[in-house]
C-alpha cells in the first residue's frame, strides 16, 4: 500500500492489499471502549488531579459529552470514506480521503490505537519494539494493528504537512 497527497487535495491510499483493506474496514469498530474500563478511562482521561473535585465534576457534566460527540463524529467521517472499499475483496483496492477529513482520520486512528493498547495493557517497551512477533495470539495481532494504524497516521501527517 502507498499513501500520498494528490494534486487534487486528496490523500490517496493505493494498492491496498486485501489484509490491509480488512484492517482499514475494521478500524471504526476498534474505537468503541464499551465494556472496558481501562479503554474508557484512557479515551476520557481526567482533566486535573483528583483533589480538584469541582473541576472534575464540571468536566464530566459539561465537557465529556462534547468530547464523546467529537470522537463519534470523527468515526462517522471515516466510516463514510471507508464505504469506497468493497466489503470483501481479494484484489488491490484504492481509497481517497479528502484533505479536510485528515483530522478525523488521525483522531479515529488514535482512538483505535489507544483502545487496543489499553485493552491489551501493552507496556511502553512493547509498543516501541519493532521485533516481529514470535507467536500469533490475539494480543500479538493487536500490537501489529496498533503499529499498522501508526504507519497510516504518520503518512497522513506527512500528507497534511506537505501542502
Amino acid at each position, binding site marked *: 500500500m502507498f499513501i500520498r497527497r494528490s494534486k487534487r487535495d486528496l490523500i490517496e491510499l493505493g494498492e491496498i492489499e486485501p489484509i490491509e483493506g480488512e484492517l482499514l474496514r475494521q478500524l471504526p469498530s476498534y474505537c468503541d471502549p464499551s465494556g472496558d474500563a481501562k479503554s474508557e478511562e484512557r479515551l476520557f482521561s481526567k482533566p*486535573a488531579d483528583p483533589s480538584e473535585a469541582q473541576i472534575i465534576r464540571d468536566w464530566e457534566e459539561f465537557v465529556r459529552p462534547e468530547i464523546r460527540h467529537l470522537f463519534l463524529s470523527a468515526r462517522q467521517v471515516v466510516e463514510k470514506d471507508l464505504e469506497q472499499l468493497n466489503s470483501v475483496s481479494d484484489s488491490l483496492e484504492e481509497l481517497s480521503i479528502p484533505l479536510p477529513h485528515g483530522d478525523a482520520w488521525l483522531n479515529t486512528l488514535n482512538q483505535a490505537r489507544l483502545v487496543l493498547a489499553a485493552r491489551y495493557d501493552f507496556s511502553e517497551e512493547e509498543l516501541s519494539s519493532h521485533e516481529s512477533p514470535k507467536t500469533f495470539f490475539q494480543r500479538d495481532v493487536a500490537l501489529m494493528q496498533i503499529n499498522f494504524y501508526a504507519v497510516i497516521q504518520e503518512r497522513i501527517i506527512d500528507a497534511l504537512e506537505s501542502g
Partner: protein
Amino acid sequence: MGETDVETKTEVDLAIPWNVVVHNDPVNLMSYVTMVFQKVFGYAKEKAQKHMLEVHYKGRSIVWTGAREQAELYVQRLHGYLLLATLERTQ
C-alpha cells in the same frame, strides 16, 4: 463557610495563573503530538517539538500558563486530540 468566603476563594482561583500540562503517553506518536501543539497553541514547529521532547523524556511538559478559563479550553482541545492533558494551579 459563608457565601463571601466561597466568592473570595473563586476569585482567587480565577486570578492565579494555571498551567496546562501534557503527560507522556507511549501510544501517541511524536509527530502527532508536535502537530497537535502547533494546531492548538499556534506554536512554531521548533517550539512544538521542544515541548513534545520534554513530554517524551521527562514525562510531562507545561505547555501553557495563564488564566484558568483559557487553560480549561486548551485542556479540552488537547483531550479532543486524545492527549493526556491536565490543568494545574501554579501555586
